């Protein structure tokens, strides 16, 4: 088997700060290499260093070889001609990576026409074939806003695949996807391997690494701490960090003991809701009791968030009614959002956001200190802006913000789907712990059945 790609002694620096150090990797045609690691470990920087499009201010040294082409890592511009032809890059969040003003077929056809230099009419025919082959025949003439995230993922794959590059780099392909869509992506990558392509996958999703097989490299703080074939790394992890990463998979979490359940706080009776012609749910009954932990489960677009918003009183159901326990104030129901960055004003310091809340509701500001300690947040974080702290920290600050209001029910909407597994486990455990300490009911929306069964005692499956 010929060598598809190799990096030697790759180092990436920002000034004197070393972000990736002495990294060497290689990959043969038809093989898979999965790079596992937490957010901020430098995984995405590695993809950029290989492509040669590092953000300005970062310097790379070492050698990068792609196929027969070798160049110094620092001279990224030399690898630009390889883009699409020798190296394919499957983008993160494909829904955003498709041009919103172009039909999907044209976005695939342009790779045929402009990268592999086929004539346009032929390119359009081939693009139609490509889309048929991945089950998107009906969506050829759709625009990106008319297709789902999973379909966008497949369109992006077809657009990259059309260039027939022997090396495919995949950066966080499953970010924000549910289990079914994740399996879809894995199937596409396996197909590439079967065709003789080499696949370098960068992810924090252990399930993807397990499904792809091949070899695994585990990265922590810019260095590879463990490397080997997939079976041995996953079954007999040698490094402590690898063990922690594997233990953070929701399927391996310990079960939480059930809690004391009190009176019924919110009751939804015969709820029904549709969006346009699509029925989300009907005749749905739900009860939320004091101190209860309940999971609302279901795939993308099944109406989980909508049901939550109906229970919170943010939107009205088409049918049925929501009854709240007498004496339960409006602030007694609080929501923890999926994307914490979108739940804070971007140009206000975090401390200001919390102080404003305390002033508005005339709360006792002295409670904030102990609350931050309990959530393992350093008070110095409060001087920063929301964009200057990590996703896990920001989600915990969002949690602190709603706990100040002493809610009776916390409604957490996929609160960790954008976090890496270790941070996810830490955040969710803390969420369940604090809900218990404060005596709140916790309603958790999740697409991950393992998280639902490990963390909560009652599960509601959306139709």
């Amino acid at each position: 088997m010929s060598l598809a790609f190799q990096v030697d002694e790759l180092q990436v620096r920002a000034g004197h700060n070393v972000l990736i150090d002495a990294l060497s990797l290689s990959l043969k045609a038809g093989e898979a290499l999965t790079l596992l690691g937490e957010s901020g470990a430098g995984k995405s920087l590695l993809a950029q260093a290989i492509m040669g499009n590092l953000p300005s201010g970062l310097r790379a040294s070492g050698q990068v070889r792609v196929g027969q082409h070798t160049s110094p890592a620092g001279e990224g511009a030399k690898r630009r001609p390889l883009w699409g032809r020798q190296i394919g890059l499957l983008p993160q969040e494909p829904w955003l990576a498709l041009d919103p003003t172009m039909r999907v077929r044209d976005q695939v056809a342009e790779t045929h026409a402009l990268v592999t230099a086929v004539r346009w009419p032929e390119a359009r025919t081939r693009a139609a074939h490509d889309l048929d082959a991945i089950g998107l025949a009906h969506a050829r003439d759709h625009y990106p806003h008319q297709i789902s995230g999973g379909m966008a993922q497949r369109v992006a794959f077809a657009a990259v695949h059309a260039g027939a590059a022997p090396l495919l780099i995949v950066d966080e392909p499953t970010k924000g996807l549910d289990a079914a869509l994740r399996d879809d992506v894995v199937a596409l990558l396996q197909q590439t391997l079967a065709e003789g392509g080499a696949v370098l996958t960068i992810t924090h999703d252990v399930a993807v690494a397990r499904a792809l097989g091949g070899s695994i490299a585990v990265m922590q703080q810019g260095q590879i701490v463990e490397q080997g074939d997939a079976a041995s790394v996953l079954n007999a992890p040698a490094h402590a960090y690898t063990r922690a990463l594997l233990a953070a998979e929701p399927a391996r979490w310990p079960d939480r003991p059930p809690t004391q359940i009190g009176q019924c706080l919110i009751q939804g009776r015969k709820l029904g809701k549709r969006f346009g012609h699509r029925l989300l749910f009907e005749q749905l009954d739900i009860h939320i009791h004091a101190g209860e932990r309940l999971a609302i489960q279901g795939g993308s677009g099944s109406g989980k968030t909508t049901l939550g918003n109906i229970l919170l009183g943010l939107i009205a159901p088409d049918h049925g009614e929501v009854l709240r326990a007498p004496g339960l104030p409006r602030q007694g129901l609080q929501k923890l959002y999926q994307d914490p960055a979108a739940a804070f004003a971007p140009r206000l310091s975090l401390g200001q956001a919390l102080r404003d809340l305390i002033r508005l509701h005339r709360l006792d500001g002295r409670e904030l200190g102990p609350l931050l300690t309990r959530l393992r947040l350093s008070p110095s974080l409060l001087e920063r802006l929301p964009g200057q702290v990590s996703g896990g920290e920001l989600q915990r600050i969002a949690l602190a913000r709603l706990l100040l209001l002493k809610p009776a029910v916390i409604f957490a909407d996929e609160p960790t789907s954008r976090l890496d597994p270790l941070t996810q486990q830490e955040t969710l455990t803390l969420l369940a712990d604090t809900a218990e300490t404060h005596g709140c009911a916790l309603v958790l929306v999740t697409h991950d059945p393992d998280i639902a069964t490990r963390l909560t005692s009652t599960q509601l499956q959306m139709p």
Partner: protein
Amino acid sequence: MNIQGISPVAGVLGRRGLQALLVAALVGTLSFFLMRMLPGDAAYRIAAGRYGYDLVSAAAAEAVRVELGLDQPWYLALVGWWAQLAEFDLGTSLVTGHAIADDIAHQLGHTLLLAFCAMALSLLIGPALGILAGLRPGGAIDRITLLGATVLRAFPPFVLGILLILGLSVHLGYLPAAGHGEATSVVLPALTLALGLAAGSCRIARDAFSQVVNSPYYAFGRTKGLSDRQVLLRHGLRNAAVPIVAYLGMQMVFIIEGVVILETLFAWPGIGHALIHAIFWRDVPMIQGCVLVFALLFVTLNTLVDLACLALDPRRRH
């Protein structure tokens, strides 16, 4: 697709059509009251317009008053005006006695020519510079265009017009200073208007373009293997055009305001010029006609902008 494609267009046309009716009714009524509330005796002014200030007498003014029914109570006059409007009859000029519709149809052509030249010129200057600036935010072109746009935007059109007259016609003698006798006469007023317009669209284009260039789909176009030029043409221009075209709708206000001032400054025989003169002479039907045409022009141009946005951005169609 067809059904989905037609209904938003019909929606725009229906909404804007209704708006045109409302605007006509409101503007017609408002202009009537504004004219009634102006100080001074309208009959005297009209008589002066007809016979010259030297020849106006109380008797001439009284004759005008009786002839035109200016002694009617206001509500009768208003009802009369509404009835005329409903029949698309704009009346006759109190000063010249010509049919207003004929006068305006003639002047509208000049105004549209000026507005069209100004818009075309501004689109050549503004978005092109904006795209260059947006390709390298913070670069030399970006800073120079920011300074230029700020300075141009800070000048009222008449000051800019006078500066251009001084520079291009008085000093250099390249272009006629005013009038409409020569083919090049339109250049100076159009350029004056275009510079102010370009100052706005340049900054909008710059922001739109830097946003597009930093978008994930632009990056994906590049990593797919497209050259910089191919990505710009296939994924850059159309996406950046969406906010620029939407902004044109806002610029209509600037155009209409500019047309009134610049036509007067450059003695360009359009509706703006006619409007100012009609106000001087208290030629109420002429004023009402001009204002009405401006208002409808505004709605029509905004309708075109809406349709262009629909054509450019498929997300608005569904």
